[in-house]
C-alpha cells in the first residue's frame, strides 16, 4: 500500500486545469479583450510551478524509499476493459519518470515565465498560454503514464499541441503547412506505436497492460515478436523524435514562436521517443538486433543533421538541426543499451538547448523577428547577458570539457566504445566535431564581428528581466548539470545512472580506464578542431558564401523535402484529385449506368405492347388468365 500515492495525478492536472481556465477565458473574451495580458501570464505560470513543486515532493519521497522498490503508483480509474485488455488510467512515478517530470516542469515553468515577456502584446496571448499549459499537461501524462496506452494519450496530446503551436501564426499559410507536416509525420510514427502496442498486447499483455505487468511477463516474449514490437515502437519514436526518415518536420516546426521551439521542439517533446525506448528497456534489452538498428539510425541521423546544420542561415534552423543531431546521439545511446546515458543526455540537453533557443529568441526579439544569421553580428556589446548565457549553452552543446554536455555526450561515446560499437563511436566523434563547428559558427556570426545590418543593430537592446532571468537560471543548469552524473574518473559516482537503475534494464560493461580516457581525448580533440575552424572562418566578419557542389546539397538538405514531396505528397494528392475528378463521377458509376441503359433498352422494347387501348389490356389479362388456367388444370384430376 505504501506505493500508492495520490499526488502523482496532480502533476499533470495542474497545467491541464490551467489550460482549461485560460482556454475558456480566451475563447469567451477574445473578441472583446477584457482581461489584461498580465493576468493570463500569471495564471499560466501557476500550473507549471505547482506541478514542479509536486514533482519535487514526489522526488524526495522516492529518495526516501529503498532503492529496489522505488516506485509510486496512482491508479485513478479503469479507463477501459475489454476481454483480456485492461487499461487503467494510472500514473507511475519511479526514478525515471520522476527525473523526467522534474526537469520538464522546471524548464516548463521557466519557459512560461520567459514567454510572458516574449509574447507580450501578441494578439492571441491567452490562446498561446492555454496551448502551452495543455502541452505541459500532456507531456506530464506521457511521462507519468503507468502503461503504454496512457503514455499514448500524452504522446498524441503533445503532438496536437505541437501542431497548434507551430501553426500559431495561422494567418500565414506556410506556418499552418509546417504544423500539418508535423502532425502528419507524427501520426506516421503513431501508426508504428499503435501497431507496436497491439502486437505487444497480444504477445504478453493479457496479464495486465501496464509497465509493471509487462516487465514481469517480458521473458515470455518470443524473439521474433519482440523484434517486431521493438521496431514498430521505434517507428513511433522516430516520428516523435525526428529520426531518419521522419525528421523532416522538425526544422519546419521552427515556424512556431521561439519559446515553443525551446520547450517542445528542443527540451521536452522531441525527447519523448528516447524516454519511450528507455521505458521499454525491459523489452529492448532482450532484442539486441533492434537495439543495433536503433543505434545506427540514431547515429546516422546525428551525422546527417549535423551536416545540414553546418549550412543553415536561419538561427532557429541551425538549432533545430542541432536538436535532431543530439537526438540521434540519444538514440545511439539507448540503442546500445546505455539507457541511463541516453536519459542523462536528454536531461542536460534540455537545459542547454532550451537555453540556446531562448537566447536565440532574445536575439530575434531584439532584432524584430530577424532570424537570418547573416544579417546579425556584433551583438556582444548590445546584449551582454544573452551573449554570456548563450555562450555557456553553446559550450555545453559543443561538448566543451566540464560543461554538462561534455559529460553526457562523453558517456554515450564511451559506452559505444566499451560495448564494441566502434563504428558508432567513430561517427559520434566526427559529429561532435561538426557540432562544435556549427554551434560556434552561429555564435560567432551573431555576437562577434561587425554588425551586418546597421539599422537593426542600432535598435537592438537587452530584453526585459522576465526574459533574462530564465536565461541565467538555465545557464547555471547548462553549466553544472553534468556534475550530477560525474564518472568515477572525475571523482564522481554516476549519481544519475544509479538513480535510474531500478527503472531500467541495463548492464554496465567493465572496461579499462584507458578506453574511457581514449574516448574523452577523442571528443576533446574533435571539439577543439571544430571550434578552431569555426573561429578561423567566422570570428570576425565573414560574408555570406555562395554554396556550390556538395555544400549546396547540404544547404538544401539533400533535397529530402523535395523528394518526399515528389514521391509521397504529390502522388497522394494527385490520387485524391484523380478520384474526385475522374474515377468517382466517371468510373465507379459505370455499373449503375450500364443498368440504367439496360433498363431503358428493355423499356423501349416493351413499349410495343403498350398500344393504349383499354380493350387490349383486358385481352392481356385474359391471356394471362388462360395461361394460368392451363397451368392449374394440370393439378386437377
Amino acid at each position: 500500500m505504501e506505493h500508492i500515492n495520490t499526488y502523482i495525478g496532480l502533476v499533470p492536472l495542474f497545467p491541464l486545469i490551467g489550460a482549461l481556465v485560460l482556454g475558456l477565458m480566451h475563447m469567451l473574451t477574445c473578441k472583446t479583450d477584457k482581461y489584461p495580458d498580465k493576468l493570463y501570464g500569471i495564471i499560466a505560470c501557476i500550473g507549471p510551478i505547482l506541478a514542479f513543486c509536486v514533482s519535487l515532493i514526489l522526488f524526495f519521497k522516492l529518495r526516501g524509499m529503498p532503492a529496489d522498490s522505488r516506485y509510486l503508483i496512482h491508479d485513478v480509474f479503469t479507463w477501459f476493459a475489454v476481454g483480456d485488455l485492461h487499461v487503467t488510467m494510472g500514473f507511475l512515478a519511479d526514478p525515471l519518470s520522476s527525473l523526467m517530470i522534474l526537469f520538464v516542469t522546471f524548464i516548463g515553468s521557466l519557459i512560461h515565465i520567459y514567454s510572458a515577456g516574449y509574447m507580450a502584446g501578441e494578439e492571441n496571448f491567452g490562446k498561446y498560454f492555454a496551448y502551452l499549459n495543455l502541452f505541459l499537461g500532456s507531456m506530464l501524462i506521457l511521462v507519468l503514464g503507468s502503461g503504454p496506452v496512457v503514455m499514448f494519450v500524452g504522446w498524441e496530446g503533445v503532438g496536437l499541441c505541437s501542431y497548434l503551436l507551430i501553426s500559431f501564426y495561422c494567418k500565414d499559410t506556410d506556418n499552418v503547412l509546417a504544423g500539418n507536416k508535423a502532425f502528419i509525420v507524427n501520426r506516421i510514427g503513431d501508426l508504428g506505436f499503435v501497431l507496436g502496442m497491439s502486437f505487444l498486447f497480444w504477445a504478453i499483455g493479457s496479464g495486465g497492460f501496464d509497465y509493471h505487468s509487462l516487465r514481469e511477463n517480458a521473458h515470455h516474449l518470443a524473439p521474433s515478436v519482440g523484434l517486431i514490437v521493438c521496431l514498430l515502437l521505434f517507428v513511433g519514436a522516430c516520428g516523435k523524435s525526428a529520426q531518419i526518415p521522419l525528421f523532416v518536420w522538425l526544422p519546419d516546426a521552427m515556424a512556431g514562436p521561439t519559446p515553443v521551439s525551446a520547450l517542445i521542439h528542443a527540451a521536452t517533446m522531441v525527447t519523448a521517443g528516447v524516454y519511450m525506448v528507455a521505458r521499454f528497456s525491459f523489452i529492448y534489452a532482450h532484442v539486441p538486433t533492434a537495439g543495433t538498428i536503433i543505434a545506427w539510425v540514431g547515429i546516422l541521423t546525428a551525422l546527417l543533421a549535423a551536416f545540414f546544420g553546418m549550412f543553415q542561415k536561419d538561427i532557429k534552423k541551425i538549432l533545430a538541426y542541432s536538436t535532431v543531431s543530439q537526438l540521434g546521439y540519444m538514440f545511439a545511446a539507448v540503442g546500445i543499451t546505455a539507457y541511463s546515458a541516453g536519459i542523462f543526455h536528454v536531461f542536460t540537453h534540455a537545459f542547454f538547448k532550451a537555453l540556446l533557443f531562448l537566447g536565440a529568441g532574445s536575439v530575434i526579439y531584439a532584432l524584430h523577428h530577424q532570424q537570418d544569421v547573416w544579417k546579425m553580428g556584433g551583438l556582444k556589446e548590445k546584449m551582454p547577458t544573452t551573449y554570456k548565457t548563450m555562450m555557456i549553452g553553446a559550450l555545453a552543446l559543443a561538448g566543451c570539457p566540464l560543461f554538462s554536455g561534455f559529460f553526457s555526450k562523453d558517456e554515450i561515446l564511451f559506452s559505444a566504445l566499451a560495448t564494441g560499437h566502434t563504428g558508432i563511436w567513430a561517427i559520434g566523434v566526427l559529429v561532435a566535431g561538426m557540432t562544435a563547428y556549427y554551434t560556434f559558427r552561429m555564435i560567432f556570426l551573431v555576437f562577434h564581428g561587425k554588425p551586418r545590418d546597421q539599422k537593426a543593430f542600432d535598435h537592438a537592446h537587452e530584453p526585459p528581466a522576465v526574459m533574462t532571468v530564465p536565461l541565467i537560471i538555465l545557464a547555471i543548469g547548462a553549466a553544472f548539470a553534468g556534475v550530477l552524473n560525474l564518472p568515477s574518473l572525475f571523482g564522481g559516482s554516476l549519481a544519475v545512472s544509479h538513480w535510474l537503475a531500478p527503472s531500467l534494464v541495463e548492464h554496465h560493461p567493465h572496461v579499462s580506464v584507458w578506453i574511457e580516457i581514449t574516448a574523452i581525448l577523442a571528443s576533446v580533440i574533435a571539439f577543439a578542431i571544430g571550434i578552431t575552424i569555426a573561429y578561423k572562418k567566422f570570428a570576425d566578419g565573414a560574408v555570406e558564401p555562395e554554396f556550390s557542389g556538395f555544400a549546396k546539397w547540404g544547404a538544401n538538405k539533400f533535397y529530402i523535402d523535395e523528394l518526399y514531396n515528389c514521391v509521397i505528397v504529390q502522388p497522394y494528392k494527385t490520387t485524391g484529385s484523380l478520384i474526385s475528378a475522374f474515377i468517382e463521377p466517371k468510373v465507379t458509376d459505370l455499373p449503375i449506368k450500364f443498368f440504367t441503359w439496360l433498363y431503358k433498352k428493355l423499356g423501349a422494347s416493351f413499349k410495343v405492347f403498350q398500344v393504349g387501348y383499354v380493350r387490349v389490356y383486358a385481352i392481356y389479362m385474359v391471356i394471362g388468365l388462360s395461361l394460368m388456367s392451363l397451368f392449374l388444370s394440370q393439378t386437377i384430376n
Partner: protein
Amino acid sequence: MKLLVPFLKKTIRKGALDIMVAEWLFTAFSIVAVLGSAGLVLSRHPMNGAMSLIITIISLAGLYALLSAKLIFALQLIVYAGAIMSLMLFIIMFLNIQIKDLPEEKGRFLYLIGGAVLISPFAAFLIKVVKTLPESQTTIIGNGFGGVNEVGLVLFQEWLLPFEIISILLLVALLGAVVLAGKRRLK
C-alpha cells in the same frame, strides 16, 4: 309396367316430380339466359343488346326462384330489370344513338372467335373445378329460407358494417354521377 308404376309412385312421393319440373324449368331458363347474353354480345346496336340483357336478367330471376332465393328473385326483378336496366335504356334513348354514331367494328366476329378461343381454357378450367364439387339437389326448401325476414336478420346482424359501407358507396356514386353528368362548362 309392373316395375314402372311403383317407381313412379315412389318418386312422386319423394317429390321427384318437382325435381323433374325444376329441371325442365332450369333448362328453359338457362337456354334463354345464354341466348340473351349471346344477343348482347353479338348485337350491334346497344338497344338490342340492352333488350337481350333484360331477357337474361329476367331468366336469371327465374333461376333464383328455383334456388329458393325469394328476396333476391324479387330484387333482381325490381332493382336490376326495373331500375338499372330502365336507367340504361333511358340513357340509350336519351343519347339518341344512330347506327352511324356507333363504331364500325369491322372484324367483330373475328374478334369474337379469337376471344372465345382465348377464354376457353379458362372456362374449361372453371368447369373442371366445378365438377369436383359434390353433387346436390336443389329442391325448394321452406322454413322461410331466402325470405325477407331471414335475409334481413342476417343482413342487419352479421353484415351491418359492409351494408353501411355499401350505403356510403352508393351515396358517393350518386354525388359522383351528379358532378360528372351535371357539370356545366363555365367558359
